[in-house]
């Protein structure tokens, strides 16, 4: 069990119009990418609430990938602008709370970029593999850290 390499669990939120089609293209082009990613199709990357991402980490996801259309290409005109700000905020919040912001990744993948999708998943999986398992949201502090102030 111990010398088995760590297989991260990665959750991907892909937008219906670009990134999901990009992932589909990666599939039909028979591009190889790690099977660690579980994909959820959403109508727009802008519909991904910080709740969804926090809930993914709460349920022991090791990394979360959010992918949407390139800026200016959003099917709903400005959904991905919201995503961009929201993700930047959430990264800052996770960092301040002591969690690794690298476990959160935002990428713009168009319907024609099957190769980019495969590369992104490959790189992201490697990154999470190096980071190791994500700290649990239910973790208790080490005894040395407890100090009532």
């Amino acid at each position, binding site marked *: 069990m111990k010398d088995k390499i760590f297989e991260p669990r990665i959750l991907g939120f892909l937008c219906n119009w670009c990134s999901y089609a990009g992932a589909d293209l990666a599939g039909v082009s028979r591009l190889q990418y790690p099977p660690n990613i579980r994909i959820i199709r959403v109508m727009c990357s802008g519909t991904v609430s910080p*709740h969804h991402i*926090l809930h993914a980490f709460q349920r022991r996801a090791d990394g979360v990938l959010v992918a949407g259309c390139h800026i200016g290409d959003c099917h709903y005109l400005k959904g991905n602008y919201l995503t961009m700000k929201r993700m930047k905020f959430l990264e800052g919040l996770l960092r301040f709370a*002591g969690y690794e912001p690298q476990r959160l990744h935002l990428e713009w993948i168009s319907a024609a970029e099957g190769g980019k999708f495969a590369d992104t998943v490959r790189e992201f999986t490697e990154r999470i593999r190096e980071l190791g398992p994500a700290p649990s949201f239910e973790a208790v502090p080490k005894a040395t850290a407890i100090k009532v102030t």
Partner: protein
Amino acid sequence: MNTKIGKLLEEARVDGFLAYRTIHGFFFPYLFSRENARKLEPWKQTKAHYPMAKLLLALARGNPNRTYGILVRGCEERAIRELFKWGQLERERVVMLGQACPAELARHCECWQPYPSQVDYGKPVPPVKGSKRVQDLEKMTAENRLQWWLSHFNRCIRCFGCRDVCPVCFCTDCSMEHEKLIPSNKLPPDTSFHLVRAVHMTGRCIDCGLCEEVCPARIHLRTLYKEVNRLVEEVFDYKPGTDGQNSPFIFPGEEAMLPPGPR
């Protein structure tokens, strides 16, 4: 205080005025009306800090046709402005008189504006730039910071005090009661409890610090929300509670607005 408020009541500019009254030597929030206007006292500087904006919100919801006056500090004015923006209070139904906070309170709060825009009582003291508590945490390594926060979050007894006292928590449906997100059978609640609340404070938290004061577990919530505010200013270019700037968190159109109502 007695003359200005007394005049407002007498001229029927307001139906009631929310201010402080000394009872057994302590300051308590008190609703003055024409009938009990003789109980008004001269203004005295105090560090007493009550959820005045929340009391006003409850009053206004119960009596939507009445106009109320309120004695506000800097943070309470920001809260009321934010409630105006979210359509929870009506601008023409609120009359504000301002009081400046004492220097000690401003220092304790690390307040960026310890006085309202219009000061009727007291002398404004200079604001505090930055927050030492946030800076101290920034200096820690990520691992130490996680341990520090865990040592706080694990003390949580899920009393919802932080939410219930918060002047800008007015939603009728609360995400903190979402069974999947915050399972009700877990105590202490996991980190998502505090992070979900922090996410909801974006563009709303006016940094009054009541959440931290009311917390029975003494969780340093204010430090967390101060960082939230810093991030909101950096990412969204918005400072909650400022006048003349629309909140980027409110979508135009009436359907998306959160309806006012009792909780």
